[in-house]
């Protein structure tokens, strides 16, 4: 390696090839795809936030006059759909892409071009969904799209067609990514990276992929039925023909409840990375954290009907689903306590990432407790369809998922870009967002308990809701300020942040053993792993003396907290480009430490590592697939022949580009 490092001819050529629009359109590098996901999802976060702001302005005072009832319906539908499918899931996907290969010691995902395909489908699908604003018919049936409200009889414009087709397109993206990441985690772990040594983020992502792969087909079919009802006159949700509207609700929530865990488990994973690093302690109860994640996912498939207590399923069904729902509180509570015990007695460093992570732990408890309240059918009958529920799921998804994801951005930004985010701006971002979130969503509990229904576009004076609604709207102002400062921080630190070096935080997992940003091949030498915290084994062995270092120790669950396994640590990480890990003994103290001098990282060619070729074909396949789905809109306009013609044209283009993709080798022949 050292001898090949003196070949400047390659360096120029490589860096030229790696910049410019074309390189982004054709990239199959999981880190660049992660950056694309991150950027796109943050953009849609602004759009979804704008929608929320208009909603809150309309509701700030009684008898609001900002938007019409129709626009209001479109706004809350698109706000929910955007935040779930275009923001939180893709933000999680950005971290899956960046971190899974790095954390398991792989050079890329299993199917790099399929990975690019997932991103492009997401991008085109999200654009398609939002094109509806410009043709004047954004989806307006709620993010859950209940029938018969969304059937042709009650919703005869294009609004719901955009929603149905958009979700079908986005589902393809999530499913393709699901197969890809399952294969990656099962099959691409570095030597010694046993399942019970995988970093917790990878574990939670692994579980999330199973949820995606098993839950998305169900909504696909529910949407197919709705689409067929609307386009071809089938009877699935036609009550006059004996169709049952509950069919939609069941199918939707069989998907919809696992979806909740799809949204939160990646954030749980990020927090489980951040807390140990800034507590200088291994994660408390690692095996139990893994099992509780599995249990949450497993139970998550058996609780869907708790969204439907009010539709009259009868006392037995209500009781069963109430009990299974309460059961989920157990593994979730286990996680909360494990995070608390991770911090307990640790050397805490309150970086911005740490603040976001602790906030998830604290505020998720609020959402969790109100969740247990709805689990009781009699209580739920009072709360359902009120602002109490809105408060509940915003505590789970904003104070939970978004806090964790922002924490992840602050923690992993140095790995993405090679530069640190500004901690001072980060602190402003955190505190304003924290105040804003609580000011917005906490009063909604009271508004709900005082009887304010969800989804109303205006309310009269004198019902006791004025103060709470005004507080919520003021809270949005704080959130906007916080997010604006955060985005400014993200933007300016790309070029002006401090140089990060390999491991700015003194973190324990493999991704911090390589340069920031990582070279395209990630690991010059595939690491050999001997414990859950390979970097601490090398840099600060005292921290990991209590964790198991052999499969036999990992297999036994009675891990002795006082036991000593020191001396069995490995020094076989071996990824020198950028300075050998642990060369300076203890880990750097934090962002204030002196920035290491950047050294030129050798290219893949110099190291003789075969890399996948860039390819534009995944983009074409994604584009033609989206256009094919989008063509179906014409059926609704009574232009069936046009629709058929367009589907044939784009379907043929899709098939041709798919064959072009599959028949082209991923790497050059060698």
């Amino acid at each position, binding site marked *: 390696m050292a001898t090949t490092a003196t070949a400047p001819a390659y360096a120029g050529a490589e860096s030229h090839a790696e910049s410019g629009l074309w390189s982004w359109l054709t990239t199959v590098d999981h880190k660049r795809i992660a950056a694309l996901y991150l950027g796109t999802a943050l953009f849609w976060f602004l759009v979804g936030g704008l929608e929320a702001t208009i909603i809150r302005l309309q509701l700030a005072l009684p008898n609001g006059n900002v938007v019409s009832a129709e626009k209001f319906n479109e706004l809350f539908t698109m706000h929910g759909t955007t935040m779930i499918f275009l923001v939180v899931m893709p933000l999680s996907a950005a971290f899956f892409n960046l971190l899974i290969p790095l954390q398991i010691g792989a050079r890329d995902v299993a199917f790099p071009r399929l990975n690019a395909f997932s991103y492009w489908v997401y991008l085109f699908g999200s654009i398609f969904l939002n094109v509806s604003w410009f043709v004047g018919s954004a989806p307006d049936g709620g993010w859950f799209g209940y029938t018969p409200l969304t059937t042709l009889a009650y919703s005869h414009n294009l609004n719901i067609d955009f929603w149905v087709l958009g979700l079908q397109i986005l589902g393809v993206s999530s499913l393709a990514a699901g197969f890809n990441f*399952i294969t990656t985690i099962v099959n691409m772990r570095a030597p010694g990276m046993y399942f019970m040594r995988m970093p917790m983020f990878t574990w939670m992502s692994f579980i999330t992929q199973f949820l995606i792969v098993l*839950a998305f087909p169900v909504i696909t079919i529910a949407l197919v039925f709705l689409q067929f009802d609307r386009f071809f006159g089938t009877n699935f949700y036609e009550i006059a023909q004996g169709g049952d509207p509950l069919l939609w609700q069941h199918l939707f929530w069989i998907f919809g409840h696992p979806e909740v865990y799809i949204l939160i488990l990646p954030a749980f994973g990020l927090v489980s990375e951040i807390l140990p690093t800034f507590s200088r302690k291994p994660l408390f109860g690692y095996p139990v954290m893994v099992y509780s994640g599995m249990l949450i996912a497993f139970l998550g498939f058996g609780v869907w009907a708790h969204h439907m207590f009010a539709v009259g399923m009868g006392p037995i069904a209500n009781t069963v689903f109430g009990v299974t729902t309460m059961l989920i509180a157990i593994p979730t509570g286990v996680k909360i306590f494990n995070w608390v015990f991770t911090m307990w007695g640790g050397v805490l460093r309150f970086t911005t990432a740490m603040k976001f992570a602790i906030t998830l732990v604290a505020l998720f408890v609020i959402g969790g407790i109100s969740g247990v309240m709805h689990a009781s059918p009699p209580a739920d009958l009072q709360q359902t369809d009120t602002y109490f529920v809105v408060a509940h799921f915003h505590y789970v998804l904003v104070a939970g998922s978004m806090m964790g994801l922002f924490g992840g951005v602050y923690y992993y930004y140095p790995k993405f870009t090679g530069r640190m985010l500004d901690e001072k701006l980060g602190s402003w971002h955190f505190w304003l967002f924290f105040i804003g979130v609580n000011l917005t969503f906490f009063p909604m509990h009271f508004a709900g308990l005082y009887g304010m229904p969800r989804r109303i576009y205006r309310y009269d004076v004198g019902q006791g809701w004025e103060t709470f609604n005004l507080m919520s709207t003021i809270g949005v102002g704080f959130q906007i300020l916080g997010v604006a400062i955060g985005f400014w921080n993200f933007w300016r630190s790309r070029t002006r942040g401090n140089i990060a070096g390999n491991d700015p935080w003194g973190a324990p997992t493999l991704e911090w053993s390589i340069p920031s940003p990582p070279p395209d091949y990630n690991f010059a030498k595939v690491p050999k792993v001997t414990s859950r915290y390979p970097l601490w084994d090398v840099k600060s062995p005292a921290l990991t003396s209590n964790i198991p270092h052999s499969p036999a120790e990992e297999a036994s669950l009675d891990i002795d907290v006082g036991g000593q396994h020191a001396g069995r640590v490995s020094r076989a990480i071996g990824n020198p480009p950028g300075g050998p890990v642990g060369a300076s003994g203890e880990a750097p103290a934090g962002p204030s430490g002196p920035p290491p001098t950047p050294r030129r990282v050798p290219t893949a060619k110099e190291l003789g590592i075969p890399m996948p070729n860039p390819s534009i074909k995944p983009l074409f396949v994604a584009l033609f697939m989206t256009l094919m789905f989008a063509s179906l809109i014409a059926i609704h306009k009574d232009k069936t022949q046009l629709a058929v013609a367009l589907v044939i044209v784009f379907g043929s283009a899709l098939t041709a580009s798919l064959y072009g993709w599959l028949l082209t080798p991923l790497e050059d022949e060698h």
Partner: protein
Amino acid sequence: MSTSAIAHAGHTPTTTGLDHRKIAIWAFIGSECMLFASLISTYLIYKGRSRVGPFPHEWWCQTTNATSATGPIAGCPAGALFKPILNIPVTSQSTFVLLMSSLAMVLALAAVENKDKPGWAGPGFGGRILESSKLWLLATALLGAGFLCYQAYEFTSFVHEGLTIRTNLFGSSFFTLTGFHGAHVTAGVLWLLTLLAIDVKRGLGPRDALLVDISALYWHFVDVVWIAIFTLVYLIR
């Protein structure tokens, strides 16, 4: 663009020793199970809930909507009485054809895996037949296409008898379920024909066995789904 490329991956050792594509196809099949489970459940939930005929297993009377599982209904005007619509003898034939395609698929995989061992299947004409991967890939695709022809015939005759996807809940859920299955068979036939084209162009050998293996997994899965559909939709009343 070279056809050898499609088989060319997996030169780096994997954690499990299995090729990535093998893991991925199993994950995909798991996902497909949920897809077909949703379709089949919907069919079963809506069974017997249609307001108007035709019905799958019951005699039905156009004017009164009165039905009987046993036979002609008293009070039904002459000429307005209709037979149950599902034709089990014909569908049994198509089921047989599809199951035979799975046999051909197994033989195709065996032929590809043993391509480097001439004479493995024994002497004589029979052995040469068994060794021909092209023959068995073609046979699988043709039997799959034969099943699709049966399905086209079935769909057409149902429409002539007055059952379309719009007629009633039975029509909607039946055509959607079997249509989705038929679409999967169609995709499988195209996949097999692609493999056949590669085989004709450059010959498939043991190093390509994985390609045939994953298509076989998919093909057998689609067959198994049909067995479930045939049992739950056609055989059980």
